[in-house]
């Protein structure tokens, strides 16, 4: 499964553009039979869209919001970012019939349903963080009949809720296995939506778990939202004795501020084993490993370049690096030597990395 770098993008035709809210649209793709295998995705994974603009090749990862277990076609749901060039382009210029260049699915933040599993899935979504969690919950409801999903969904107001109608419909058909609790930070006075007032913070998490204690005892917790919400929810769960192995998180929207300029890269000799092919690159001081490799035109995988998506993951075999904000990595992965090249600066004169595309 490609990770958006050493694999080339494929031209995929958009069959439909669906407005979800004033700021979010879904783009449904037609994947021809010969590409079905390459584009098979797991619930929670992303695809990278590559767009040429002003002479630059821009790439952005977007979560696949459809479920492969519910027989749905490949679809991404994109929220327009205020100064987002790619999201702006998609919203303003792409319609049914347009062709986009898309790289195959990747990502480790996944929920794979098992038909005999008996689980309680707690999903914490804020804003567009709903996209991977929506794919996950559709998959559980379709393919894991003994499990139950509890969703805590935070938004500004009812109008900004993505997938509102779809969730209401699922509550009708799967009411024994799904609960949806809305949290609104600025609800309109006239809003008739039943919701908790405020944000998804430690109190909301405690209240949520108290209201929906697990029935199936194999409980797993998935979090997707902006940096501070992620941190707050994780801490609140751990304060309730939830073991860290059961908590899975992905950052969306604003990353926590990256003001870590404490460590400056030293000049280093990089050796990268990329899918078995060795590349030797002299990395200048002050550049991240990814920047050094891009400058040397080594075709390594990458997408968001902010430490959020995990596409640029590699295994450090020799040498040391400092990682600024490797948000896409779990603590155990970092301990095992995984690094994000977009976040890594060399702190030793020699580095050896293994990267698989």
């Amino acid at each position, binding site marked *: 499964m490609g990770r958006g770098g050493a694999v080339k993008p494929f031209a995929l035709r958009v069959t439909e553009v669906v407005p979800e809210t004033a700021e979010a649209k879904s783009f449904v793709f037609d994947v021809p039979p010969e590409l079905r295998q390459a584009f098979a995705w797991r619930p929670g994974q992303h695809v990278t869209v590559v767009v040429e603009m002003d002479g630059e090749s821009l790439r952005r990862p977007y979560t696949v919001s459809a479920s492969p277990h519910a027989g749905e076609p490949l679809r991404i749901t994109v929220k327009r970012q205020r100064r987002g060039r790619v999201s702006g382009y998609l919203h303003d210029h792409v319609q049914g019939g347009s062709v986009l260049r898309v790289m195959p699915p990747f990502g480790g933040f996944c929920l794979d349903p098992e038909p005999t599993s008996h689980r309680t899935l707690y999903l914490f979504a804020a804003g567009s963080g709903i996209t991977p969690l929506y794919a996950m919950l559709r998959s559980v409801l379709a393919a894991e009949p*003994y499990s139950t999903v509890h969703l805590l969904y935070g938004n500004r107001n009812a109008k900004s809720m993505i997938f509102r109608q779809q969730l209401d419909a699922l509550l009708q058909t799967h009411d024994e296995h799904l609960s949806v609790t809305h949290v609104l930070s600025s609800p309109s006075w006239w809003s008739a939506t039943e919701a908790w007032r405020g944000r998804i913070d430690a109190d909301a998490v405690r209240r949520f778990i108290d209201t929906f204690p*697990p029935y199936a*005892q194999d*409980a797993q917790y998935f979090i997707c939202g902006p940096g501070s919400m992620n941190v707050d929810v994780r801490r609140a769960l751990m*304060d*309730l*004795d*939830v073991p860290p192995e059961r908590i899975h998180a992905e950052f969306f929207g604003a990353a926590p501020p990256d003001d870590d300029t404490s460590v400056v890269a030293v000049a280093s000799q990089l050796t990268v084993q990329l899918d078995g092919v060795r590349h030797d690159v002299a990395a200048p001081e002050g550049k991240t490993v990814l920047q050094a490799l891009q400058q040397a035109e080594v075709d390594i995988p990458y997408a968001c370049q902010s430490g959020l998506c995990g596409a640029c993951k590699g295994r450090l075999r020799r040498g040391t690096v400092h990682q600024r904000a490797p948000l896409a990595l779990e603590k155990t992965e970092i301990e095992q030597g995984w690094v994000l090249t977009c976040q890594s600066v060399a702190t030793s004169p020699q580095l050896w990395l293994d990267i698989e595309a």
Partner: protein
Amino acid sequence: MNQTMPILPVEAYVDTEWFEREQRLIFSKTWRFAGLAEDISEPGQYLSVQAGLNNLFIVMGRDHRLRAFHNICRHRGTQLLRAEGKGRKAITCPYHDWTYDLEGRLISVPQQEKEFPDLDTSCLGLLPASVDLWRGMLFVHPDPDADSIMQWFGDVEPYLGPHRPEELVEYADGAGQEEIRANWKIVVENYIDAYHLAHLHSGTLAMYDHSRIESGFVGPHFAFYEPLAPHYAKNLEANAPYPLIDHVPADKLGAFVPMLFPGLGLSETESAWSIFHVVPLAPDRTRVVLRTKVMNVSEWQFAKQEWRSAGFWSTQIRGKYEGHGDDDPMASGDFMQEDIYACEQQQKSLRSPYFSVGATARHGEAAVRDFQRLVAQWVEGAP
């Protein structure tokens, strides 16, 4: 198929060696009933339960999730917790005060620097086990990686009653224990024997229609249903002993009486839901733990229903025989006392060299033969 050959030898019902093998190969390797969901409802509450050779305890964390561990201190094996309790934030061994948190991590070893300078506490956490909830019942399994409880019960679930035990309330007078002087398999065979219903219980179970039984094994579990007898069904609202369970649809009125392997019986009827938990104590002794749940309505409703139905039951129930005294189970009019009596009478003969099984009913005792075959399969090397 020769119906007169016993499938299990007599030794299976009297020998200690067989008993130990069953404890090891059946009761230590299957999901074991541990209580009702309400038994642990608050973080910090715990209870301990024996699953074959293993004593396990279940404790609830602040995330309202249950954890199960082997009830063994990693120091020198002392059993940590007693039967049940509440308010625990940590588990401390009574012997040397080694302390574990609710995730099982070893967090305190008294005088560690002096007495255990090289101790790696991260390797000495409590041994995890499995725990899950199903149909309002707690189950444990000694293996932390046991197959999901739905893999174990999923196939038989459609054949059980439509009852939602989580919505019913426990009826205090329905809780109790019996100690039966018979092997646990004699007790289970009695539970699943259909042939005796119209005979041993001719005066005590005639409100169900034994001529329309639907039963059979689904995997290792035995499913059973019989509808109401016409004379009882005719005026059910008035004649049910307790308020009717409101979520049982008309076409499912009757008695669902499954026996879930290896020894959890359920009785799911029009007005009550009970568990019949078979606990082997010795080759010739078995405890049965009983609990009952009923509709969540007022005491007044129960009293009213009792008065309404009293006339029906006074004519309906009679002892099988005229009594030999106040304690004669065969005159008691109590079907459980009748079953206990039959089981004990059967066990008594097993030691006689003249004991044999002459024949078994083709249909009514098919379940008994199937159950014996099942036990033989689980206990390796059995005939």
